[in-house]
């Protein structure tokens, strides 16, 4: 057969066409990736905008932005908000993986090479993330234009705090555009990151003409994260009093803050990577004791694939730990600051809103993981249903697999965040009684209500999204899946 002068493989156009070919599930994956990438790009552009606020810009209705010293904190919060969003994108690119795997295997059977397959996956993810990036830049630009009005300059009157809200000032820094290099970086980061991540993920996958082999590690999760978490939290609890005895707290935030940040990062890394170890240990303890079929299936799943659930749940746990630390810090600030001064109250309210968005994104990622888990295991589920296993039992197994490791992890995260805040800022604050009055120590209350809302609300949201994922269970246990298996 004449194959032309040189067999150079499929052209980019062919790969492009193959990348965007697929069914409804593939379309859903692409749409979710676009939405997630757009949200992440908006988050990054917002952080870039705050980073670009100059000395002559402002003031703003969002008073925290008027304090140059607090802006790095705002940028860190916005970047942290991108973590659950990027995790959501990471979960989205896995949606419909089995159908895509079959398509890729068929492509290999038709003569496609492994590098062609990697190209198709990278193009699909890269295109979707680029589209998301473009949408994100577009939405950002529209919001920037819509919310913008000239920042009126009011003279600062004697006695007026300059950093406070100024009447008529724009709430957000809509008079500022990110510097060109930050704009390029923030716009390109998500598409590039998603493309690279998809290529890295393909290293664990072998696409052959006969199917797709996912290389899973069967090593139990390491215990190092547990050590990191314990050392980090214990350090945070003790560091406040240790630093005070060493006189470090009097020398400014430098050394004190650096060690506190290091300990906090250790605790966070330990918790995020430790959720898989926690799930594994819980499953290993439960599995030989479980008498209920749903609990047995769930606990064995935790032992067999502890990283599956932890991929998404670690972000939920991270959000809860940060949220708990914020609530503990807020309780301290509300005690030691003037009740008539609304700056800190408003700032913490803003932080709570950001946290709520973060938890929502993290839980959305969990929904994608739960749905994907049900769809991936559809053959086994269909066979179990056919042999008389009630769908209720299968649904309970899915629910337990998510909730059993996550409930203690959320409690642990909430406790860790609170201990960290109370360890760093103390359990009592000095309050001055009137102008020129004596300072007295007042106990900082434990914000039980706020913590309850945070932990309970997150757990309720997790249960809700897992319940939503069960809507896919009926379809996954459908007879047609059984016929496909047979």
């Amino acid at each position, binding site marked *: 057969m004449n194959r032309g002068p040189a067999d150079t493989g499929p052209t980019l156009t062919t790969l492009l066409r193959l990348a965007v070919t697929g069914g409804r599930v593939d379309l859903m994956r692409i749409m979710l990736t676009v939405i997630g990438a757009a949200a992440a790009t908006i988050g990054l552009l917002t952080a870039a905008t705050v980073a670009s606020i100059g000395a002559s810009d402002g003031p703003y209705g969002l008073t925290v932005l008027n304090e140059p010293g607090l802006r790095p904190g705002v940028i860190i919060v916005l970047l942290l908000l991108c973590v659950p969003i990027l995790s959501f994108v990471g979960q989205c690119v896995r949606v419909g993986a089995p159908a895509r795997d079959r398509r890729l295997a068929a492509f290999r059977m038709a003569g496609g090479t492994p590098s062609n397959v990697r190209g198709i996956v990278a193009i699909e993810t890269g295109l979707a993330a680029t589209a998301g990036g473009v949408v994100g830049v577009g939405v950002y630009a529209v919001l920037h234009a819509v919310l913008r009005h000239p920042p009126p300059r009011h003279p600062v009157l004697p006695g007026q705090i300059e950093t406070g809200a100024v009447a008529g000032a724009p709430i957000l820094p809509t008079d500022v555009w990110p510097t060109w290099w930050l704009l390029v970086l923030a716009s390109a980061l998500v598409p590039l990151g998603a493309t690279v991540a998809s290529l890295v993920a393909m290293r664990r996958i072998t696409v052959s003409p006969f199917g797709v082999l996912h290389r899973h590690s069967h090593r139990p999760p390491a215990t190092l994260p547990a050590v990191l978490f314990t050392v980090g939290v214990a350090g945070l609890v003790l560091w406040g009093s240790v630093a005070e005895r060493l006189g470090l707290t009097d020398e400014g935030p430098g050394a004190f803050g650096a060690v506190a940040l290091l300990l906090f990062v250790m605790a966070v890394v330990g918790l995020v990577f430790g959720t898989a170890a926690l799930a594994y240990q819980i499953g290993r303890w439960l599995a030989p004791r479980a008498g209920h079929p749903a609990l047995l299936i769930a606990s064995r799943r935790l032992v067999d694939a502890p990283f599956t659930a932890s991929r998404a749940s670690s972000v939920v746990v991270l959000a809860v730990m940060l949220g708990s630390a914020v609530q503990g810090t807020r309780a301290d600030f509300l005690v030691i600051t003037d009740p008539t001064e609304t700056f800190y109250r408003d700032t913490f309210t803003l932080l709570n809103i950001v946290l709520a968005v973060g938890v929502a994104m993290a839980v959305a990622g969990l929904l994608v993981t739960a749905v994907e888990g049900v769809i991936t295991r559809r053959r086994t589920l269909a066979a179990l249903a056919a042999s008389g296993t009630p769908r209720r039992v299968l649904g309970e197994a899915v629910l337990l697999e998510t909730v059993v490791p996550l409930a203690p992890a959320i409690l642990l995260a909430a406790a860790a965040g609170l201990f960290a805040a109370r360890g760093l800022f103390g359990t009592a604050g000095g309050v001055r009684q009137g102008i020129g009055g004596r300072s007295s120590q007042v106990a900082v209350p434990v914000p039980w209500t706020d913590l309850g809302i945070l932990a309970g609300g997150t757990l309720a949201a997790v249960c809700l999204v897992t319940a939503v994922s069960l809507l896919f269970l009926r379809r996954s246990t459908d007879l047609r899946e059984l016929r496909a*298996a*047979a």
Partner: protein
Amino acid sequence: MTTAMPSAGPHAAPPTTALSARSLVVSYGHTPALRGVSLDVARGEILAVTGPSGSGKSTLLLCLAGILVPDVGEVGFGDRCISAESEASRSRLRRGEFGVLFQFGQLVPELTAAENVALPLLLAGCRRKAAITAAHTWLERFGVDELASAQPSSMSGGQAQRVAVARALVSEPEVLFADEPTGAMDTLAGEKVMAELVRVARQAGTTVVLVTHDAGIASYGDREVHVRDGLLDEAPRVTATHVASGAR
């Protein structure tokens, strides 16, 4: 809730009949799978259903097992009309009176062999210790007791299918439905599994409906019916191949 079969009608099943199908019609979209199939299966009988791919033999098994409700027609089990019963009722039937065996996919990959076999008993409310003990007995009966703690991924196709057979029989069902039970195995392993399945079924008096396209596997049946283009082509015969070999 169970629904009784009309006892006085022309389609009433005789007392020795375990299963009966009357004028079954099933279509997948515009594609007909069964076009008016009627069939009786006697108690303790091993019935082989054969036919080419896409002939409708698996659909017939799914209807008889209460997994699929026919568009037209009735399926009876004893004096019950199971095709008229609810999904939950048919599920209970498959957990108790029926055992179902497929070519692959029926073992839960994360559970050990013993837990897989114990699963139907746990679903029936049996305590874990008793269920696991019973599972070990059944695994031993099929010669795979040493795999009790192993997961399906570490077993060969034949070993996994023996575990699946043990699971299908652990609740001592009245009827076992097997759809290409040896399809994923080599001939020798398939013969061994079939010999053991038939031996255990004979001992317990279990009725077996066996769907296969393999003439060798079909020869384990007392009777063979052939499905072609959704219609039954029954050729009564008595297989002698495995009588002499002691399989029955």
